[in-house]
């Protein structure tokens, strides 16, 4: 009967799908094993999840090393360099988040099995997102990564703040999806296809019914602006970040945000590359607003997690800058695309590192106030140095990785060379200085303020957190000193023709 309906079984390349299959299998194992394990053995689940991610990562690297590419289901699902680099990023980020949360979840008396299951689900969505080149696939991947995240944000069930974090994140996330879907439906109606490549062909050059496409692009961009917490669609982010458990916050601010950007990169650079006149100015305004507002509000924060929340909003602004300047010529499309991807990779390392330090310090101080970091240097010099490295990297001081992220963005701006691009470059430079105020003020408190309660007992850092810190600082310093490491990642801009 299926054959009669003209249905062909799609030709799947299971080798290319290995990372997805491994993650899916792991999450099934975790879900089932959780039913049979008693409470004393729940720690096994985090080990199983971790190994699952490492195996998936192995396949990703193996595919990348062999240069294995595949295009499936008529081009709706593509495995190429870009997809593999981002899959690798998501898997590593997932692994670090597991390291960060192992003790947190164990000691906090949370529901362990479900926690790991949901993290893996969300990661599966992200891994799928890296390869999604079709509106339906993108939508499904986006929901797969978002739905578990809504629940994770409310993981401290009896904490009102955590409830509130979950509710705000959920409502605005769903609203964003609805807006984005409306945009997608208009674009589908215009182009008659859900494949990004076909949409790209249909929207190229001069077109009839241009307003339909414009409105469609606008709605899609607004939907993703919510996801990546760009100003003026950012107001859920600080509350959610503050209320959610800190490892989840780290996960949301890095992985979930990167997921949004990956979708945006694919939609804009494949689907709407011919309509830069529409999205160019839009992203210009979004980027300028996001950087400026994020940084200015971050200045007056007294809670470290909220400060990092606003800092991550501002960082999203820098990632949006290349979008705004991409449209002017072919060279700038290339360098803008690379700049966004490179920024995402570096941002993940430094932001995760900063959150890991926050978790480590909170184990002792049980507080999120910046003041509670006072005199940290006196009893935890190692953590202080690491936090300083992460903060200065976020601020973009060489020779740390963050400086390269900003340099790539400036190169995109200068490659574009239009006066509006240069203006945005100046806004970005001014913002880099504003950002320094609050990053340096946290460093100041750690190094120079007295210990608030006079308690100088050293902090015991569990091995998992040490591993997370070691990994992140290694990336930040190694890439800072030797950015050619990126050359080994293949041509991430393979997606742009």
């Amino acid at each position, binding site marked *: 009967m299926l054959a009669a309906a003209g249905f062909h079984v799609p030709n799947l390349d299971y080798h290319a799908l290995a990372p997805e299959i491994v993650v899916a299998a792991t999450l099934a194992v975790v879900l089932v094993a959780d039913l049979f394990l008693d409470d004393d053995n729940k720690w096994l689940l985090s080990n199983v999840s971790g190994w699952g991610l490492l195996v998936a990562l192995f396949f990703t690297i193996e595919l990348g090393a062999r240069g294995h590419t595949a295009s499936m289901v008529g081009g709706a699902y593509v495995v190429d360099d870009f997809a593999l680099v981002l899959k690798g990023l998501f898997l590593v980020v997932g692994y670090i988040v597991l390291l960060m949360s192992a003790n947190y979840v164990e000691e906090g008396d949370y529901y362990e099995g479900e926690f790991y299951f949901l993290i893996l689900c969300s990661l599966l969505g992200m891994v799928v997102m890296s390869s999604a080149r079709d509106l339906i696939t993108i939508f499904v991947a986006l929901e797969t990564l978002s739905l578990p995240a809504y629940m994770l944000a409310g993981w401290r069930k009896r904490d009102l703040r955590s409830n509130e974090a979950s509710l705000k994140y959920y409502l605005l996330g769903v609203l964003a999806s609805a807006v984005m879907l409306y945009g997608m439906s208009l674009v589908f109606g215009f182009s008659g296809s859900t494949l990004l490549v076909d949409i790209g062909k249909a929207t190229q050059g001069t077109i009839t019914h241009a307003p339909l496409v414009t409105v469609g692009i606008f709605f899609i961009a607004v939907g993703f602006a919510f996801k990546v917490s760009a100003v003026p669609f950012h107001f859920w982010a600080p509350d959610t970040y503050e209320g959610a458990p800190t490892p989840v916050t780290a996960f949301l601010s890095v992985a979930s945000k990167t997921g949004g950007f990956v979708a945006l990169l694919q939609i804009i650079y494949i689907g709407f590359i011919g309509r830069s006149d529409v999205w160019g100015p839009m992203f210009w305004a979004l980027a300028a607003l996001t950087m400026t507002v994020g940084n200015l509000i971050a200045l007056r924060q007294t809670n470290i997690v909220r400060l990092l929340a606003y800092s991550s909003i501002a960082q999203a602004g820098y990632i949006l800058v290349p979008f705004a300047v991409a449209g002017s010529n072919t060279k700038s499309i290339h360098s803008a695309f690379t700049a966004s991807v490179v920024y995402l990779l570096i941002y993940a390392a430094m932001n995760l590192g900063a959150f890991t330090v926050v978790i480590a310090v909170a184990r002792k101080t049980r507080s999120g106030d910046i003041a509670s970091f006072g005199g940290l*240097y006196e009893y935890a010099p190692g953590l202080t140095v690491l936090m300083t490295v992460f903060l*200065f990297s976020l601020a973009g*001081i*060489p*020779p740390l990785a963050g400086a390269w992220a900003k*340099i790539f963005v*400036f*190169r995109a701006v*200068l*490659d574009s*060379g239009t006066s509006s691009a240069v203006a945005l*470059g*100046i806004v970005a*430079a*001014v913002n*880099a*200085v504003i950002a*320094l*105020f609050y990053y*340096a*003020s946290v460093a*100041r408190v750690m*190094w*120079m303020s007295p210990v608030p309660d006079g308690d100088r007992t050293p902090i015991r850092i569990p091995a998992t957190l040490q591993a997370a810190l070691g990994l992140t600082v290694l990336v930040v310093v190694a890439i800072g000193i*030797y*950015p*050619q490491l990126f*050359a080994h990642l293949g041509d991430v801009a393979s997606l742009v023709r």
Partner: protein
Amino acid sequence: MLGFPVLTALIVLPAIGAALVVAIPRTRPEIVKVVALAVSVAVLVLACYGLYEFATGTAGFQFVSRHVWIKQWGISWHLGIDGISLFLVVLTALLFPFALAGSDAHHDVKAYTAWMLVLEAGCLGVFLALDLFLFFVFWEIVLVPMYFLIGGWGYEGRVYAALKFFIYTMTGSALMLVGILALVFIHAGHTGHLTFDLQTLAREQSFSGSTARWLFAAFAVSFAIKVPIFPLHTWLPDAHTEAPTAGSVILAGVLLKLGTYGFLRFGLYLFPKVSHDLAPLLLTLGVVGIIYGAIVAAVQRDLKRLIAYSSVAHLGFIILGTFALTTQGVQGGIIQMVNHGLSTGALFLLVGMIYERRHTREIADLGGLQKVAPVFAGVFMLVMLSSVGLPGLNGFVGEFLVLIGTFISRRWWAVVAATGVILAAVYLLWAYQRVFHGVPEGENLKFPELRWREGAVLAPVLALIVFLGVYPKPVLDRMEPSVRTLVERVDRQAGTHQPSVAQGGHR
């Protein structure tokens, strides 16, 4: 010349020293100082070796070492030294052991010493780098230890001062980074190859007039904050006053020179035409700085703040000499950098000693110290007179050359600046009079005399102050070819010629 990479060693050695210091256990603070002194003296010996091996009479870069660092961005570990940077390197290498030996941290010696050594590596890196990216990296590295030194070991208002210092200089750095990137990418757009190499960029001048002007502005603002030039100087008095003694010595002696050196190496060298066009503006700011610094210094009640403002005036002279764009002016500017490092560094150390003894820096609380501590007073007098610019001491040579150099090309600026020399004599001598003359009372009666150890630290600096004042020829000979080449390059690009007097002086 030997194959030994002297310049790389100059930067790496203090960095290794810092790592060593960090590795020493907290329970053995006494070893820390020994290690730090040993490392910084070793750096000094290396620098002197460089001075000895330096080929006098050549203009180009010597001891060049070059290794590719990041290939696809055209960035390399490119170090070199010429007549302009030679003496600044030696000065830096001299002042660090001087500051380390001359004052002690009051707590957490280990971290303090480690930061000092990192600072030394950064400063030497700035003076030696011939690659714009490398230069920027060292420029930024310098900020971080200085921030922590001021904020961690300074006086009452230290945290505010540290943040102010940091924000000011970072603002400049951000602009400079944009300038560097714009310069490099515009160059790449014209020539097709991406490079951060200073010499290549200078040789293939690939930007039009107005672009060059913007690029120069981006660099100039950053340098001007560091120098500091008049309207951007407000961080300096705070930072100087609140910094620990060794911090002030290094800040005045070395860090301020990063800015003036930047003007010579990256302003004049990369943008000769624009430097010539904008010289009147910078000369004016320099003169304003001289007069303003002197007047404000005269009304200070805090001795350390007074010396801080005197720095603003002295640095004004250096800017004046640099933008006179004559061989004498630039030479005078460089030698004035060295002089200012020596005399102001020594002054800050002496004020630090007064503070340790009396726990005050208020001029009004001091008086009659000459009666109880004549040797101390004598040393202070000598250093102060060098700062005033008394003939026979080093300060005179620099100021004289600057004024001659400026008079040749820009007469009226030189005339106004000359009044600054008189003002300097007024405020410094007046301060000396109030602190050392008169009848000692109360606490001042018990003011201890200069100790042998302190004398031993100060002696080499005093010797240099006299030596450079009496016989500056060896120094001038070594810097002359590089300076002449630089000035001629500016003249050629700007299409002007030096007045015949300036040429006649040396041919």
